[in-house]
């Protein structure tokens, strides 16, 4: 059995770590590329959201390099993601791309269904080991998040252009190659050193911009046109409203790990703008805009895939939030036609606006 799964940013490190810990052979798809997207666009419904198209591309490419089992998450709505796995499977079936499909989703009747599905992948290994593997996967996600967060701070302040990107790659590689929790501890230490060795100008003034919106486009650099890197190079420190480890803790561990930041902080402040959940992360997006406004950020960028339902609800409410809180918000909609150059132009304009605003504010207060 060679297990594969769709890409979503650095999620593969966590999943691969977990599965390999259980001795399962893993074949992650090649990183998302233009080819992945083209394959997906060709075979998927036109108005489906971008992640579905990239998923299908991932699977076709993973099949080419020998994967035979798909591990995929599911859900029970109302966002379309809950039905992804099945639509993808029908598409692959018609394409004669054969896979075993294992969907991990909340059970319809009782927990046995879910455990049975997990067993399909883990075989006859004891549950204790499965739990240890889950923990290992989570620790890897947390380690990657730490490195990413540190890159958000270093990039706008780096003295040598590109130093952060190089260090990030190295640090991620360290975490990826750790095989056991003990090795992971040393790898974390090493990755921290790597990130700290980047020479920075600590006094350089930077703008702070929050990235909010839909989880896939936030986490997958191919889907968001490497937005974090572009913003960093424009002298902006970013903060992402969603980190993988926080998401795992919130949704899979049901907040088991205390003291970790949780998306609950956003939901608390979403009212009165959006008084009900709307599936996906729509309510969190609205709440995040309010929250980052309160934290004194200079601006926020909402990123969503074209036709994403919950984010469209959020998008139509964000101008109200922005008007009331004074936090400038720009929406970037990603689809298969999004070019990086066009996006960079828009980012530059947005950053210019924020800078101008800051100067005005200083002029008024001084």
């Amino acid at each position, binding site marked *: 059995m060679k297990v594969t799964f769709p890409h979503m940013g650095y999620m593969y490190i966590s999943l691969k770590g977990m599965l390999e810990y259980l001795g399962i052979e893993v074949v992650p798809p090649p990183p998302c590329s233009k080819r992945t997207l083209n394959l997906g666009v060709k075979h998927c419904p036109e108005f489906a959201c971008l992640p579905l198209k990239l998923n299908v591309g991932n699977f076709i490419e993973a099949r080419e390099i020998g994967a035979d089992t798909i591990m995929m998450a599911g859900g029970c709505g109302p966002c379309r993601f809950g039905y992804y796995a099945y639509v993808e499977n029908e598409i692959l079936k018609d394409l004669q791309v054969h896979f075993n499909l294992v969907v991990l989703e909340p059970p319809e009747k009782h927990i046995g269904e879910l455990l049975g599905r997990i067993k399909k992948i883990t075989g006859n290994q004891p549950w204790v080991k499965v739990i240890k593997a889950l923990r290992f996967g989570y620790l890897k996600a947390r380690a990657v998040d730490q490195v990413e967060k540190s890159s958000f701070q270093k990039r706008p302040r780096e003295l040598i252009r590109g130093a952060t990107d190089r260090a990030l790659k190295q640090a991620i590689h360290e975490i990826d190659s750790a095989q056991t929790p003990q090795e992971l501890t040393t790898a974390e230490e090493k990755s921290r050193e790597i990130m700290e060795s980047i020479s920075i100008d600590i006094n350089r003034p930077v703008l702070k911009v929050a990235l909010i919106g839909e989880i896939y486009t936030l986490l997958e650099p191919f889907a968001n046109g490497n937005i974090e890197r572009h913003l960093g190079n424009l002298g902006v420190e970013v903060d992402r409203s969603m980190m993988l480890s926080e998401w795992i803790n919130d949704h899979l561990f049901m907040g088991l790990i205390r003291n970790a930041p949780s998306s609950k902080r956003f939901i608390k402040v979403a009212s009165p703008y959006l*008084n009900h959940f709307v599936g996906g992360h729509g309510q969190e997006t609205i709440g995040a805009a309010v929250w980052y406004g309160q934290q004194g950020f200079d601006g926020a960028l909402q990123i969503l895939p074209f036709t994403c339902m919950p984010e469209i609800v959020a998008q139509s409410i964000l101008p109200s939030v922005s008007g009331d809180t004074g936090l400038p918000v720009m929406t970037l909609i990603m689809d298969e036609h999004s070019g990086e150059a066009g996006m960079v132009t828009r980012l530059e304009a947005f950053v210019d606006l924020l800078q101008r605003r800051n100067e005005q504010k200083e002029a008024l207060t001084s």
Partner: protein
Amino acid sequence: MPVRVGIPRALFYYYYFPLWKEFLEQLGAEVVVSDRTTKEILTRGLEHCVDEACLPIKLAFGHVQNLADKGVDIIFLPRIVSVAKQEYICPKFLGFPDMVRQNIKNLPMIMDTNINLRKRKSDAGIFAREVGTAIGKGSVKSRLAFWQGQYKHKGYLRLLEQGLLPDEAISVLDGKERKDKVSDTDLTVAVIGHPYNIYDPFISMNIINRLKNLGVQVLTADNLTEQMINQGVKQLPKKLFWTLSRRVTGGALYYHEKGMVDGIIHVAAFACGPDSMTGELIERFIRREGKMPFMNINLDEHTGEAGIVTRVEAFLDMMRWRRAIV
């Protein structure tokens, strides 16, 4: 003077209007419905709604403004989260009252009481009480009014199952006489799509009446009973969690499985999320077997009537030829 409550002729109108009307009238309110869709209503909707929203939501924005023009006291936009166990309505419906409130200024009061029957069917009572309290009636009176509404709703569903279209059924419930069916039809076509798309003559380019005038008997998913729908939807690998899409998909697959119709026309709205997934599944299931003609029509605010007419006529010609050959 009774409270004037406005119900937009959009979204859930085609599902629940008789229920809402009876319920609100029993509570002593006067029910006002927005006008039939016109170009102007749609245009006003487009002005106030984000471009990325789906067509039905944009249209509903227009209807809400039409109601505001009529000077109603309350706009009735219940937040329908779920109407069946373990199922949901689409995300945009869930956010609709907030979208309206944040985008249109100077609206009358919006009544956005939640209806959430995801866990228990009996939670409808909570909704009835909250609406009743808002209009100034006690909980017993509200429950009674809601019960009467539900009774009306059952009658409405029965009429639909007998083959009537919503507008006909609503006028029959109002005591108007029933028109007899036209009998000289040679083709039966299932028009599959969300009620707020296919029954709105403006948005759907009058597709149902057009088909009827071309000598076609039209069936929709609403002419089927809940059991038939569920039987159709069983073919899918996983239960659909959107109630509205489950009905549409189940209807299409049931008509296909039983061979009850000569062809299926699937009508989807631009940027409708669930349609993009279920439309794909319906099409793949039907095309795979290749026994029934299938056509997909996408509606948006730019759809030209001429294009639809040509396609529909070609589709009918094809079915008639097909029959001549077989």
